[in-house]
């Protein structure tokens, strides 16, 4: 049985014109990138557009990937940049309602599994509060808490020094804690 090709194997094959290898990368990372995009944009259709642009950008820049970070980090970085461009171009676009975003009737949301009304309320509050944070703070929190990236990976995605990640994360958590009020004071 042949071992599974790594992300880097697939990327190198794609770089040499293997379209199937690039599609395999899409299959591996699309959902993670969609989750990240959705957390930053709070709109499924916009998140889908941004993920498409991310892979288009990745394909066009295959030759420029220097293999200094993981493919996942590289793709996340492209996505974060695409989100910034999208927001710049669509400042007037409206967000989906929280009900839609959190899997109301017919929604796509899953996971989490709240057991109490209080728990669901807390998560709704948290999500709403997250959307109110500055872009800078929301990005670092999403990358750390939702995507579980290390400080080094976050630094690579945001193209900032590791120390900046630490201080930004500290400030972001403080802002979130303050916004949430007494429970986390």
């Amino acid at each position, binding site marked *: 049985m042949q071992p599974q090709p790594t992300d880097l194997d697939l990327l190198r094959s794609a770089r040499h014109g293997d379209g199937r290898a690039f599609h395999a990368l899409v299959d591996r990372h699309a959902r993670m990138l969609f989750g990240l995009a959705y957390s930053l944009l709070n709109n499924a259709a916009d998140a889908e557009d941004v993920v498409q642009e991310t892979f288009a950008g990745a394909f066009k820049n295959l030759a420029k990937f220097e293999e200094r970070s993981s493919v996942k980090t590289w793709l996340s970085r492209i996505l974060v940049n695409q989100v910034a461009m999208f927001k710049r171009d669509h400042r007037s676009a409206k967000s989906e309602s929280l009900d839609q975003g959190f899997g109301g009737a017919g929604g*796509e949301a899953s996971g989490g599994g709240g057991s109490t009304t209080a728990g669901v309320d807390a998560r709704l509050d948290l999500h709403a509060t*997250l959307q109110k944070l500055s872009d800078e703070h929301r990005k670092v929190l999403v990358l750390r808490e939702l995507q579980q990236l290390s400080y080094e990976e976050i630094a690579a995605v945001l193209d900032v020094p590791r120390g900046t990640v630490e201080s930004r994360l500290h400030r972001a958590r403080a802002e979130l804690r303050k916004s949430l009020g007494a429970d986390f004071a």
Partner: protein
Amino acid sequence: MNCEQFSSQLDAYHDGELDAARVAEMDAHLRECPACALALQSLRSMSHLMQTIPMTEMSADAVSRLHAAVDRTMDRSLLPLARSFVGIAASILVVATAGLFWMQPSHASAPQAWEGAMLVSQQSNDLSQTANSGTMEPDLIVADLSRSNRP
């Protein structure tokens, strides 16, 4: 380690980003300081809550649309290359067509006077040789057939 030092490294401690020596110092401080232990507990609770935010998953249709979009991107990236090949092929075709056109009999130059004399001379030789040997030399048979076919 005092509380201020602990607080400055609390996030990195919580996120597992400290080395073993620092972790030991932080652990030691936690055992002695209930206030810092409470701060850590608060951070853990908030992190845990964030990690339980329901994530919107990408639908199968959206994944299909993504693959189709990737195919379109790949096709577009090949288009300039394909255009180059078509351009080169078209150039070769034009040159070849022009060459064939100029090689047609109607475009061959009229025989010069000396060529006519040579032909007459060759034809008389051919006739005599044919009469003598009963065969013709191949190179003489093909002598300017294009002109001989002209009306």
